[in-house]
């Protein structure tokens, strides 16, 4: 019983949503959009679980005075303060009922502008360093595959700078197919695309099969696969 009902829910909902694709008649016409919204709603409700777990985890670190516990205070304070100013729209120039919570001037906006945004952008920018260290380490001609990877990355990298053009600009027009800009274009437009297309076709098939397994109840690891 504990297993059958969830399996039934998954199966019925999944089947109906697949079938609804072919039924333009109301209410089926909007069922797929409706269920996406339902998902968003349930995921938003789940924030209570996530946020609650965050508080509980850091709370227990603080109360047990685990190592680094003062940092947990920072998390908890940051969380609670942002939550408070966001839910109350504190400092919103148009008042609580007036305008969106993200209106500039509110405290919530300040938390976004001066904490969230610079932190996210900097974390993102760390990638510039990591692509450098990854290319230094990984792009070495160890075998045939690695050499291809290295060569292509190298040509494309060079081709994205003025050096790429300069390097082969002396070639006569009859040999234009050897110039770096030409090679980069063909690599990107023909080969890169062919590879991505094959990957995407494969992924689509994988997703169709996995979805089917979920709908008919073979894949149910969330219920315990045993």
């Amino acid at each position, binding site marked *: 019983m504990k297993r*059958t009902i969830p399996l*039934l829910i998954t*199966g019925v909902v999944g*089947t109906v949503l*697949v*079938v609804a*694709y*072919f*039924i*333009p*008649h*109301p209410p089926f*016409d909007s069922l797929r959009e409706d269920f*996406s919204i339902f998902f968003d709603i*349930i*995921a938003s409700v*789940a*924030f*209570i*679980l*996530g*946020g609650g*777990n*965050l508080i509980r*985890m850091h709370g227990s670190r603080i109360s047990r005075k685990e190592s680094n516990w003062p940092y947990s205070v920072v998390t908890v304070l940051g969380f609670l303060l942002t939550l408070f100013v966001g839910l109350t729209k504190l400092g919103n120039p148009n008042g609580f009922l007036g305008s969106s919570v993200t209106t500039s001037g509110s405290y919530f906006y300040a938390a976004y502008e001066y904490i*969230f945004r610079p*932190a*996210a952008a900097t*974390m993102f920018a*760390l*990638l510039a360093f*990591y*692509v450098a260290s*990854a290319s230094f380490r*990984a*792009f070495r001609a160890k075998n045939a595959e690695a050499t291809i*990877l290295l060569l292509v990355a190298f040509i494309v990298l060079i081709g994205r700078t003025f050096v790429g053009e300069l390097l082969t600009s002396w070639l006569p027009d009859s040999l234009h197919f050897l110039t770096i800009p030409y090679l980069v274009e063909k690599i990107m437009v023909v080969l890169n695309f062919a590879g991505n297309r094959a990957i*995407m076709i*494969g*992924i689509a*098939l*994988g*997703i*169709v*099969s*996995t*979805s*089917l*397994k*979920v*709908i*008919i*109840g*073979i*894949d149910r*690891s969330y*219920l*315990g*696969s*045993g």
Partner: protein
Amino acid sequence: MSLVRPAPRGRPDHQTRPPRNPLLLPLALILGGMLMGFLPGSVTSASGQVETEAGGQVETETGGQVETEAGRRAEGAAGDAVPQTAPPPPEIEARDTPSDRGENITVTWTPPPEDTGVGGPVFGYRIERGLSPEGPFEHIGQASPGATRYDDTNVADGLPYYYRVITLTASAEGTSGIGGPAIAAPQWINTNQWNVFIVLALLLGFNLYFIEHIKAGGKPFIRKIAGLEAINEAVGRATEMGRPILFVPGIQDMNDIQTVAGVTILSYIARTVAEYDSRLVVPTSRALVMTTARETVKEAFLAAGRPESYDESSIYYITDEQFGYVAGVNGYMVREKPATCFYMGAFFAESLILAETGNSIGAIQVAGTAMPAQLPFFVAACDYTLIGEELFAASAYLSGEPKQLGSIKGQDVGKFIGMLSVAVGVLVLSIAMITGWDPLVRVAEWIRIFWSTELA
């Protein structure tokens, strides 16, 4: 080596599960019923379909009759206001847009020969609508020169509408006859999607066939997938070193199948971890993923016969924010130094930040994702990477259930269908282009239409 991993100890045996899925029959019935619905003139289709089709025919007939008479009347009436020098569209037709949700009428017309497209003497068309053939007509939209169709999306179901199309030139207008009455109604089956239905039926059919085939004792061959062999080794190494194992299920929510596949792989890893008695840590970026992962890991520990080793607090939520999550996971990595990192699920720009940090602490890293844009980074920075489809195949392979392998076989048949279509299609198209032979050109067009999914 046996292709299917033997069931770990302590797992409840197969008898406890229902032997045949109760959903298969209704699913097959529904799909079968729908297939019947696509057949033209079929009696078994939903009643709404038959009615509208009949209604549609009547509409066209009456519309055709009214057209000439009312058209002349309208011309006379309009002639008073604007000089009638512009050529009107000689034919006009209005009918319910087929295969839609209703509230939509399609008006089509034949352009007068003077319409030579953009830049020609005809500037465009004005579409007018009325509730009776006598009018009054209101302006509802415009169409560019060369157009032959206008979709009126602003109508109510069940009311008769009449349309006329007016040719616009620099100085004059020409009013067509009256098209209609057309009555909008929703349909029960979207016949425009017949090709999607066929492909869907084929793929699902093959998947189900192979799953059933294996259930009945068939033994498929499945090739080695490098990343999979590495999983056990990686878990074993972490155990030896006495350091934790990190599992990152991607940053998407449970509404992404990649996350589902990741969680399935997590279930396998959790079983192995439980057997080896090492420590598994799963930070998540979504509360729902946390909840699902907890259920999964708990069940896996139970199945491995070690429910007491399950620690809920090692599966925890960090934040929904992509880079906040990365900051948190990075912090965990450099402080706790896990010996093994798994990245299985949907990843975006954070893929390389995670993999490089993992590399700097000397962890064995196994990644799997179906995000084409992130695969290069995982391939460059991890020890093993499950590329695209391999992620889904791995989740089936590792489940330990033979019948799940049927779906891998099903995927392969799908690829075969795709490759065959491409080979045949490209060949036919090329020959058609070289020879210009009309029948072949039509076959080529038909092949392309079959694979088109743009909404009509």
